[in-house]
């Protein structure tokens, strides 16, 4: 059994130089989501199914609105980075993987902006 790899085999296939940043950001967002997740859940279970007026009333107050915005922001960043790793692990084929990574990178950033916009609109206009 050969444990040696040819230099040729790894040449040019080294680190993309952004792994550490990804690792740190994934954990920073995880830490942020500990308090934000609990706080958001608390506001959300009070508002879900309670009618439009209650939802507007809840998220037009600064603290619930800020909690929801921070939660949405951190959660979608965490989700995007987590799914990125899942895609890198399970999707084979360079083109298919690249396609999935591009869609992943765009869709969750877009969703985060939609969420922040919606909550801000409620907070500012109510």
């Amino acid at each position, binding site marked *: 059994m050969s444990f040696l790899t040819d230099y040729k085999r790894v040449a040019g296939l080294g680190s993309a130089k952004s792994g550490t940043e990804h690792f740190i950001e994934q954990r920073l967002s995880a830490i942020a989501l500990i308090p934000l997740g609990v706080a958001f859940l608390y506001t959300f279970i009070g508002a879900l199914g309670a009618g439009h007026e209650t939802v507007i009333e809840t998220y037009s107050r600064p603290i619930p609105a800020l909690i929801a915005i921070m939660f949405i922001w951190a959660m979608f960043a965490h989700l995007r980075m987590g*799914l990125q790793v899942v895609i890198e692990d399970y999707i084979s084929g360079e083109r298919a993987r690249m396609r999935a990574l591009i869609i992943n990178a765009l869709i969750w950033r877009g969703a985060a902006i939609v969420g922040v916009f919606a909550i801000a609109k409620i907070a500012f206009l109510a």
Partner: protein
Amino acid sequence: MADVNRGNRPLSPHLSIYRPQMTSILSIIHRITGVAMSLAALLITWWFLAAASGSEYFEFVDGLLTSWLGYLVLIGSLAAFWFHFFNGIRHLRWDMVVGLGLGESARSGWAALILSVVATVLTIILAL
């Protein structure tokens, strides 16, 4: 590269020949819950967008989320949230090189499982 030797190097252990363990099963569930919650993330974002759009459209989306199918998805996501939450704390402790022993990681795994069930039930009671 035609001369690359790929045939006789040791391969990573295949999951199918590995006996399932507390740590491996919870690691897989951590991934599954994380991926599954992306649906709830989109639903909640849609719910906020509907609330910002007006009461008529909001009642439609809120009605979908509070239908039996909506509740099924949301309660499943709630359980996923609490598991991912407690197991995530377990991972953060490991990142600080705390609790990595075999016995410790099995115990913290049980703790994460039990706490997530308790927190799920408590959240549902609180929401009622």
